[in-house]
């Protein structure tokens, strides 16, 4: 919506200067440096010989990195609750997708080897 102006009678609609972003600001440089440190840890962790530990460590760090980006760079920390609820719903949907698909994929031998 832009500068063409509101129709008369809709003054109750709250139009405000959009350059004011209505949220707080973290120190972006600090966050970036933390991200780089976590990234370096991820890369070195991948050298550990035990694949299960690698998976757990690397995946957890990814979650932490993603959280830092979304909370700080995307300013989720200062956004209203409705945004949190929407993202939570997205996560719930994905969790159920994983749980629902798991019994049908992982424990089962389904592929066949074609003859010849």
């Amino acid at each position, binding site marked *: *919506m832009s500068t*063409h102006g509101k*129709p008369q*009678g*809709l003054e*109750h*609609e709250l139009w405000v200067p959009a350059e004011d972003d209505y949220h707080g600001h973290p120190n972006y440089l600090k966050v970036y440096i933390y991200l780089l440190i976590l990234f370096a840890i991820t890369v070195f962790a991948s050298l550990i010989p035990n694949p299960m530990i690698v998976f757990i460590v690397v995946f957890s760090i990814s979650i932490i990195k993603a959280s830092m980006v979304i909370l700080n760079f995307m300013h989720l920390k200062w956004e209203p609750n*409705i945004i949190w609820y*929407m993202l939570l*719903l*997205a996560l*719930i*949907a994905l969790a*159920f*997708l994983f749980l*629902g*698909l798991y*019994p*049908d*994929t992982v*424990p*089962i031998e*389904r*592929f*066949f*080897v*074609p003859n010849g």
Partner: protein
Amino acid sequence: MSTTHENKGFWHRFFFSLDHKDIGLQYLITTMFIAFFAGIFAMVFRIHLAFPDYHIPLFGIIDAKEYNILVTNHGLIMVLWLSMGILLATAGNYLIPTMLGTDDMAFPKLNKLSYWFFLLSVIILIISFFLPQKGFGGGWTLYPPLSVGDFGYNTPYKTFSDRFFSSNTFVLLAIALEFVALLMGGINFMVTLFNKRAKGMGLLQVPLLVWMIVIASILFMFSVGPLVAGTFMLLLDINAGTGFYDASRGGDPLLWEHLFWFFGHPEVYVILLPGLGILAEVITTNARKTLFGYKFILVLVLIATVLSLMVWAHHQFVAGVDPRAATVFGILTIIISLPFAGVILSFLATLWKSNLRLTLPMKWAMSAIVLFTILGGFTGLHLGAALFDMYAHDTSFVVAHFHYTLIPVVIFAGMAGFYHWFNKFSGRELNQFLGNLHFWLTFIFFNGFGIPLFLLGLAGQPRRYAGYDHIPYLSEGYLPLLREIATISAVILVLSQFIFIFNFIWSVYKGKKVTSNNPWQSTTLEWQTSSPPPHGNFEVYPVVYHGPYEYNRPGVDKDFLPQNQKI
């Protein structure tokens, strides 16, 4: 944004109008146009099933391939284009800004763009009928490997161009485009609800229909994601030789089933919620009573929305899913009936001791509730029990079940809404005699179609078969008679809709003009402006003082109190 559309001619308005009312009507016409074909397809294949030797006009005697194409496209069009086109796109576009007392949607240009995507999806679907395969015939559920290869066609895939310019690819592209259109529309509806309400209208004073459409759009947005990914993978399987759903390459056809139904089940609630919203509006107006349990209904619907993401595998009980998972899904399916039972009970409580006016919209609404709950809902409980489903899966019992859930919600509740709001969007009245004729014919012959189908399903008649003559146990006794009754009822049912189409077109041009803005004496905001509303919806934008269903309030002399009127 120009405010002088009216003088610029039809085509200018068609292409450039950003007014949500114009866009809503465009959705209505486009949806009715494509649904017309789906209805004809249904008549044709039903006639083939009951009277296999009959030469159907324009189609001749159809063979198995053509039968599959007709059945598949009937399902695709009705579920993906008609239901959401009418209940989400048309109702949402036309009614959300008017009911909220504001001038237009939050993003009018995005709204227009979403219509273009929708129209494009319809055009691509129609093109799929003219490609070498003459239409996709693999079932509306598009299961691979049938939907991947060139099975059953006389047109083998030899080159990339064969694969790309095939009905399979084009149907998938049409579906993808339609999803994009609905995603854009959903974002628009949601932001409009939160940002563009009339002064004084808190979230709990918003008419239930608006909430239902927005919640349905949010549910759509979150369930369609994996299917978008899955559709992309299916398109690659068809065109690029990947093996996502090919068991010999480590892929899994069951994966598609899961991704499809992960969306497919919430999809039916995406269709149901706006239908319930329309029923709420029609019932409160015609019962002259406040909606019972507005907050209660909202909470139940939100619970059902979250639950609906957890029940999808009840469509796959016989596909070889892990029985332990099947148990969980079955239990959750039975549980999800509870919130919806709560909503229906709230509607019944609204009707209890009310001042019932049995107008035409009310007849549609009452039959919607009865047919949906008793014949659709209860049979859903039957099918949710995995053991029963093992017997009934892929029989006509399932077909009858989903027709008894979908048709009451899309057609009966949709018609209730249409007859209710027709005078608002056209400024004229529909012919009552034709309306009653339409209603009774639809009601009688829909049941004439559906009830035999339940019986046939219990007798073991499978669905998606192009004929039953070669099966002895289905061709003896009263079963062929049931098929004939179902077919004749279905044909009359589809033909009765032409009465409606005639009534619609006639009344738009020659119908009696309404004498009042608010002939139903309803309280919501769209009735407090002229019929049809002007560009911008209101001469003076309303201020809201109380909830949307203030009927028979003590201290007020009329039996209704419009939302923008102080006591």
